[in-house]
């Protein structure tokens, strides 16, 4: 958190606005803030990269207050050149690229002390914007990471040229060197160091993003039956950034840029399920436990794959200290990877989940809830209270909130009926959640009140109604849950020798 606070500080405090002015397609450079059309309306966006394609120049835009997964390559016609752009401050060349989100954030949202007002304004805009459909087909079509045939003059931040390899190539492109310089910038470096120190011994989520990794590098992935459109950067071998389509074997998760290679691999690959022990099976899903130390290749492949959909996941360090719990669905072709969560073998912070992901083709089908439930069932077996590693992603937060809310409401309604009392710790114990998570959920749902000199938990009517509706729905279509009795698992014990992660 300190790092992000530091990032925010200078922009909030900077009194001098940036230089504004009109731009043309040729003068628009990396780091500029311009109004760009998104979902039918102009939005402030930062230009992160520029490339030439057959159809003209394209700009990689990060939209103000939109998650990075919505970043896209935008052709020039979508940029409103009739409005002023904000130029990157010349005296501090690295600043614009660093601090794009915060200055924007300053405008729409204000600090936490007055959270109500921006929420109201935002709500208005949400309602009005809610109806606009997301033209995903268009979006995905336009997102090839690399230019076509002739577009060799990519101005993207050193996507294909390692900065140190050819120095003269660099000063051709000022922006590239800026970005490279930004990487080694002093204050940021300090934070990076801090974070690396933290991550050296454990953990898998980072709050620092390297500059280059802000740009999606893989355009499209064929995975099993599906085409996946990555959301974020993933450090697959750099040559793959030039491929229109990358192939990933559904079972061993190996990656191929060449279709012949992939086909050949498929002829030889004998895996039909994740390479570990099955620890759970019902008629819907299975879970496998995989040790990062023993299945290094597979787990690395899994991390690379999931990095395409997890922004804050870091692959800086190796997978040894993690166990991977992989959820699959079966058919006659084998166990298909649906999602997974990783877990530190020994978490100093009491986390029971490091990274958690449902693959996009299985999202919004209730699999995330199963993953979360499974993670808590394991914690129950261990006799521990668990919590997911922070930072959470937006989707992660929503999934966890939903899981927490549903389970807590159910227990609280029972308690309400029997007219008993319940402490936060007791709730935490029953759900294997940390008391901090229980508390924050209660607060977020506005259930924690102070009434007649006593703290009380009040269940809001709308949540009761929603819960009843959910129950009603389950009568016709039962919700999938994990049956704890089918888990065949003992908490793995690691001898001291294997707990030192050095090779």
């Amino acid at each position, binding site marked *: 958190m300190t790092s992000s606070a530091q990032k925010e500080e200078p922009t909030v405090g900077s009194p001098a606005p940036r230089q504004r002015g009109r731009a043309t397609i040729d003068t628009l450079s990396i780091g500029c803030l311009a109004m760009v059309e998104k979902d039918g309306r102009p939005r402030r966006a930062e230009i992160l990269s520029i490339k030439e394609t057959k159809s003209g120049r394209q700009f990689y835009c990060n939209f103000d*207050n939109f*998650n990075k*997964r*919505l970043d896209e390559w935008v052709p020039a016609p979508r940029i409103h050149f009739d409005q002023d752009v904000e130029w990157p401050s010349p005296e501090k060349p690295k600043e614009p690229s660093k601090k794009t989100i915060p200055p924007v*954030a300053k405008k*729409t949202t204000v600090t*936490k002390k007055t959270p109500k007002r*921006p929420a109201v304004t935002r709500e208005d805009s*949400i309602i009005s914007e809610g109806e606009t459909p997301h033209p*995903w087909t268009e979006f995905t079509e336009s997102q090839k990471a690399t230019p076509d045939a002739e577009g060799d003059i990519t101005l993207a931040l050193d996507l294909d040229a390692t900065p140190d390899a050819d120095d003269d190539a660099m000063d051709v492109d000022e922006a590239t060197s800026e970005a490279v310089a930004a990487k080694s910038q002093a204050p940021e470096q300090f934070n990076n160091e801090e974070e690396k120190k933290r991550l050296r011994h454990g953990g898998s989520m980072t709050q620092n993003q*390297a500059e*280059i*990794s802000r740009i999606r590098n893989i355009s499209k992935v064929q995975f*099993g039956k*599906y*085409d996946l*459109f990555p959301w974020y950067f993933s*450090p*697959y071998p750099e040559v793959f950034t030039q491929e229109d389509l990358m192939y990933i074997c559904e079972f061993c998760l*190996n990656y191929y840029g060449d279709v*012949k*290679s992939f*086909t050949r691999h*498929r002829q*030889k690959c004998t*895996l*039909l*399920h994740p390479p570990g022990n099955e620890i759970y099976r019902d008629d819907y899903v299975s879970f496998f436990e995989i040790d990062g130390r*023993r299945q290094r*290749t597979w787990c690395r492949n899994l991390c690379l794959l999931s990095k395409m959909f997890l922004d804050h996941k870091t692959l800086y*360090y*190796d997978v040894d200290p993690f166990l991977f719990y992989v959820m699959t669905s079966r058919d*006659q*072709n*084998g166990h298909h990877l649906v999602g997974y969560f990783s877990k530190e073998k*020994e978490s100093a912070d009491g986390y029971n989940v490091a990274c958690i992901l449902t693959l996009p*083709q299985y*999202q919004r089908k209730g699999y995330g809830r199963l993953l979360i439930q499974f993670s808590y069932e394991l914690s129950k077996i261990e006799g521990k209270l668990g919590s997911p590693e922070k*930072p959470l992603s*937006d*989707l992660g*937060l929503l999934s966890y909130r*939903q899981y927490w809310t549903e389970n807590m409401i159910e227990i609280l309604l029972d308690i*309400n009926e029997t007219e008993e*009392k*319940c*402490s*936060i*710790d007791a709730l935490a114990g029953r759900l294997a959640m940390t008391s901090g998570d229980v508390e*924050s959920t209660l607060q*977020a749902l*506005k259930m924690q*009140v102070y009434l007649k000199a*006593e703290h*009380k*938990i009040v*269940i809001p*009517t*709308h949540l009761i*109604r929603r819960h009843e509706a959910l129950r009603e729905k389950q009568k016709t279509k039962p919700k999938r849950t994990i049956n704890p009795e089918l888990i065949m698992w003992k908490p793995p014990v690691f001898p001291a020798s294997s707990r030192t992660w050095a090779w």
Partner: protein
Amino acid sequence: MAPSRVVRQRKLNKGTPQVVLREDQIESTEYASLQNQYHVETGVERSEENEYHLQAALKASSGAKDEVKEIPAPPAQESSNIKYDALYARQFHDPYTYIRFSNTVEEASGCSYDMTTEDDDFLKAYNQKRSAAAKCSEDDFEKIMDVFEQTAQSQAPYASVDNTLVPFERMESEVSKFFRRREFPSDPLPREVTVEKLVAFAKDIYDHWKDRRQASCNNPIQPSLKLEIHQENDDGDPYVCFRRREVRPTRKTRARDVQSTDKLKKLRREIEQGFNLVNLSFSRELTKRDMLKQGREIFESRAKFKLIKVKLGIKSEDEEYLINQKPQRRKQPSDFPQMQRTPGTQIRLPGRSDGRPLEADLVLLSDLHAKKEHNLQRDIEEKTRQHLKWNANHIDLTREPLSPVVYGPDAGFRPATAQYQYLMTPPSSVTSECFDQPSPSNANANEILEPRTFRYSTPPEEDEQRSQPAYRRRIGRGGRLWIDRRGMSGIKSTDDGVSFDRWKYDQDDDDEQPVYEMDPYDTKALRFRATIPFPQHLYPQRPQHRPAAGSPPSARPAGQQQPPPPAVAPT
């Protein structure tokens, strides 16, 4: 917050039980005013916390409206142009049990080189010129390329920097070495020929490999992850991933603290002990030195004394002046018997004052052994007596009981003694008290010195010979009277062809005496035997002739424990 009355709240303790209410159980006006404005820790990174779609979704989920907001994300699509069933042709059959699996990806996916389109073009062109028999298969091509790549990796790991290229001679030997180790089950040709063929392929493929290698700046042809190479630019490069972790520091806990203080204490104690040892041996050496000094003084004084005696012409026994030797000597042997050994180098052992030879005091090893043996023997006897006592009058009424330990060589069996002259007559009845007890004469005869076999329900050792027929009378369940026999020649029904066949070829020696079968119950034989006693030599030679079941076809009920082999037949 209610501006009218500002309530100072008590701090919320997580352990305090709280009342759980429904919203409709309190006044609605109050509820609105009572809600605390907490800043809720979301766990999302702060710069993203305010993201538009997230806020919308959070608002929707905690708000009163029943709408569900979703965060938009680029969705996945079903691939349009994929032959899934061709690509994923293997069929999966779900095993009944949970899968247990430990192969790695490398082990499960065969040859690690996967040919590319470029390779494919090359191979097709290459094979076009060749006859069907001399074509290089894709598998062989991949194996050869794999050997090239691996050899290059091991022989020239810095090829990308110094641009070394492993020459073909090197490769050739590696390729032939690689293929020589393999089996070619599908190939009808002898291995040597196959290997030669493959090496010939390798020669042609080498140039192709070289071209591809050069095209990729002498890096491995297959794209690989960037791992750390400990260069300065490693750190900032986002493509460098999976760095080594460092040794996790052990967490400081009270237990660990105690552990380490204990360790330190122990170490200190041990060092102190060593120190003391050195100190003590130092003082011991000092004492020794003093002793030597004194001994020398004594010697010198004696010499002087002797001189004076000679001078003064006193003639008496020297011994009385040399008393100091006596008690000193006497004390030693009893305290340190071994110490006596050290002067064993002396040619003659000094005589003892009391005239006994030194050896008399020594404990002999053989004596010790004998004593130990004796004790052991006594112990065993004591225990057996105890056991006998425990098991006395033991009657187990359970079904298939764990029968009591059988004592004595015969466990109640009596030999059919000469008085019956091997007539198959049961012995005269005995009183029921001595059921399953060795008859008194027997018990006395072999006392307890016989080694005993303690056996419970284990199957009995195969009795090798039962030279003498024996009988036992028991009362079974329901008061039935059993006569157990043993040492009988098997009753062989003459029509039992199977068991006869079974032993037909099971003769070790040709010169063995022919065995004549006889049925002891055959009345003819009985009648005959009534007149003529069997020759003695017939009995010990029967072992191979016994029925296959291994147990004599006696009236013994099933499941009963077989008695141990009889010891040497008594008289």
